């Protein structure tokens, strides 16, 4: 084949274009990195990742890791990542639950319910998130009493404007056993449900799946947790001086940020739920009623599984938004990755480029992981066509 013919081959030409574009991108990236590092050296600004090993010296009011102010800046980084993940994951779950409820209420035939849900959605979707965060924060602080007037719960947990102080334990071994028990129960339930389903398909006989599920998925965990708590040594908070000592403190910044993320995102999820359900053609519902299924069964077995296919891609976007929006915590001193690492650590070291790149990578990795999980779920629920 002649060389010119090779150039006119579509496959080869496409390959050449792709290589050129990729090469250009890499070259641009390399140019920016080199340019930045050269200029930083010229300006006398430190660069490199040595700073991660330095002592951080920053006190963090809410840590899930073993972080201490005497630890390194890298430990501070992980403490920030843990706090970001913690608030984001809980917010995703709660926003989904609240969003589903509001979305279903919006579709309800009950006029008041549907109007209230509609009003909520319109209100939430047209207000900036920062407003929510500050509203909940100052609302939460203002509504809660000073430590001396704390609201007590059975003398073991105390709520005041410094947070919710709950009993904590040094050793978690009893809870480890409880976790194992819960896992076994879950596995048992899953196996039982599969067997029951197979039997129903083979013989048409119903099995008491709901009842067994209730026992295995709620009864066993509750029992396991109760036994574990009795077997564990607790540190019970007690009022001394300024505030309660001992126990674990859930800070008001966490509560405010969580409340803001959940109430805000639920408004968007509600619309996705409504859209998903309305996307299921009317005939499906009518056919289901004609077959004698009840309203509940229709919703559970016919409508929601089909609506899920439509809902998953936009839901993924909402979950990613929750993750990114958790950075609003920096506005109210919730010690997330932005506040701790891009705030305190950046100011102490001045290494803006490295720190911002690392923070970016954290969001990217978590975001891609969430997307990947949702894609797997999407694969499993999508319509199988023959």
């Amino acid at each position, binding site marked *: 084949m002649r060389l010119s013919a090779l150039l006119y081959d579509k496959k080869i030409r496409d390959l050449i274009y792709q290589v050129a574009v990729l090469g250009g991108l890499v070259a641009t990236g390399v140019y920016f990195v080199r340019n930045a590092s050269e200029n930083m050296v010229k300006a006398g600004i*430190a660069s490199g990742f040595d700073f991660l090993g330095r002592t951080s010296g920053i006190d963090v009011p809410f840590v899930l890791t073993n972080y201490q102010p005497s630890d390194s800046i890298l430990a501070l980084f992980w403490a920030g990542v843990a706090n970001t993940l913690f608030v984001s994951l809980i917010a995703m779950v709660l926003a989904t639950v609240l969003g589903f409820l509001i979305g279903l209420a919006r579709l309800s035939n009950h006029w008041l319910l549907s109007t209230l849900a509609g009003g909520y959605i319109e209100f939430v979707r047209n207000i900036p998130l920062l407003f929510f965060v500050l509203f909940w924060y100052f609302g939460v602080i203002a509504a809660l009493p000073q430590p001396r007037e704390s609201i007590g719960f059975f003398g073991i947990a105390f709520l005041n404007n410094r947070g919710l102080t709950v009993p904590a334990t040094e050793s978690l071994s009893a809870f480890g056993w409880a976790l194992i028990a819960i896992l076994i129960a879950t596995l048992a339930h899953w196996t039982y449900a599969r067997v029951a389903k197979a039997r129903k398909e083979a013989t048409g006989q119903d099995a008491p799946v709901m009842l067994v599920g209730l026992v295995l998925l709620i009864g066993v965990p509750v029992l396991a947790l109760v036994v574990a708590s009795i077997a564990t040594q607790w540190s019970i908070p007690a009022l001394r001086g300024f505030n309660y000592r001992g126990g674990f403190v859930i800070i008001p910044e966490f509560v405010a940020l969580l409340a803001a993320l959940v109430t805000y995102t639920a408004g968007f999820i509600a619309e996705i739920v409504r859209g998903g359900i309305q996307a299921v053609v009317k005939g499906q519902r009518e056919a289901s009623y004609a077959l004698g299924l009840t309203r509940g069964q229709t919703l559970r077995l016919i409508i929601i599984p089909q609506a899920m296919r439509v809902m998953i891609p936009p839901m993924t976007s909402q979950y990613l938004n929750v993750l990114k929006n958790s950075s609003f915590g920096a506005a109210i001193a919730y010690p997330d990755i932005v*506040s701790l690492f891009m705030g305190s650590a950046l100011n102490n070291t001045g290494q803006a480029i490295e720190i911002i790149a690392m923070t970016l990578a954290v969001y990217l990795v978590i975001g891609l992981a969430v997307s990947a999980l949702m894609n797997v779920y999407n694969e499993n629920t999508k319509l199988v066509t023959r």
Partner: protein
Amino acid sequence: MKKTTLTLLALAGMAAAPAMAQTLAPSPTLDAIKARGSLECGVHLGLPGFSFANDKGEWTGLDVDYCKALAAAILGDANKVKFTPTSVQQRWPILQSGQVDLLSRNTTITFSRNASLGINFQGINFYEGQTFIVRKSANVKAAKDLDGASVCVAAGSTEEKNAADWFRERSMKVTITNFQKNDDAIAAYDAGRCDAYTAGIGALAGQRAKLKVPGDHIILAEPISNDPQGPVTRYGDERYQAVVRWVLNGMIAAEALGVTSKNVDDMKANSKNAEVRRLLGAEGNFGAMLGLSNDWMYNAIKQVGNYAESYDRTVGKDSALKIERGQNQLWTKGGLLFTPPFQ
């Protein structure tokens, strides 16, 4: 061979230099300020007494006065300053990237900042010490009574680390909550989120006015740290850095030498003190040696005043804050202010 030629050329150059007017080291920053016709000064977002804008947008304060004096020295007019308010976190990038010519904003001099941020501190215009503001009802007399308390602080400030270090050293269990801006931290303290807010003694005197009922709070007198503060410039451009340094020295020297904005004309014409004459440009060519006009310090003192005049007007006895001179007094009067001679 080549090296010898170069050396010879350099020697010839040096020999020729005194014959011409004095050659100055190039100063891109001074050239840019003069071409622009204004000084770009990075100040605090709003700290009464140090840098604070009134409802007409006019900036006043100790740090603001210094920038005005610098503008008077470089451009001959103290009003040719553009103030850029910066938060704790914005201040470094804004200086490093060249958006401002200097920072004059209650910034503490520290080793690691100087070594790793590409910035130089040019002197001390305020000796600050960190302390706490607490509610009177909390019955706290000193920082050591704060065991178990929550403290609000601005993230990225020296106070954030100082406080953590100080409590850790004493094994005190104190919760430190870090806010992005000073004002957010004060607002949260005021809302009851914290038992104390921590900042410098001078800064607190000004920030106290932002509380709903200032009278309900007291500032603990005993400082937990030394926080010397002063103007900050980027690395590079030594001649400009010298100007920044010597305008501050000049204001302090003027106080020591008894030169004020009121008597500066008389002093310039009649003083027999050689240092006063050199400072005000009546003798020698000190201004020209830095590439400025010879009446550089005359303009600064005439238009802004000496250090004492600025201090008294902004944070001292004639201001609302009424902070004692204390460490910020001349060395001859028991303070720490000292300046190298104008010689």
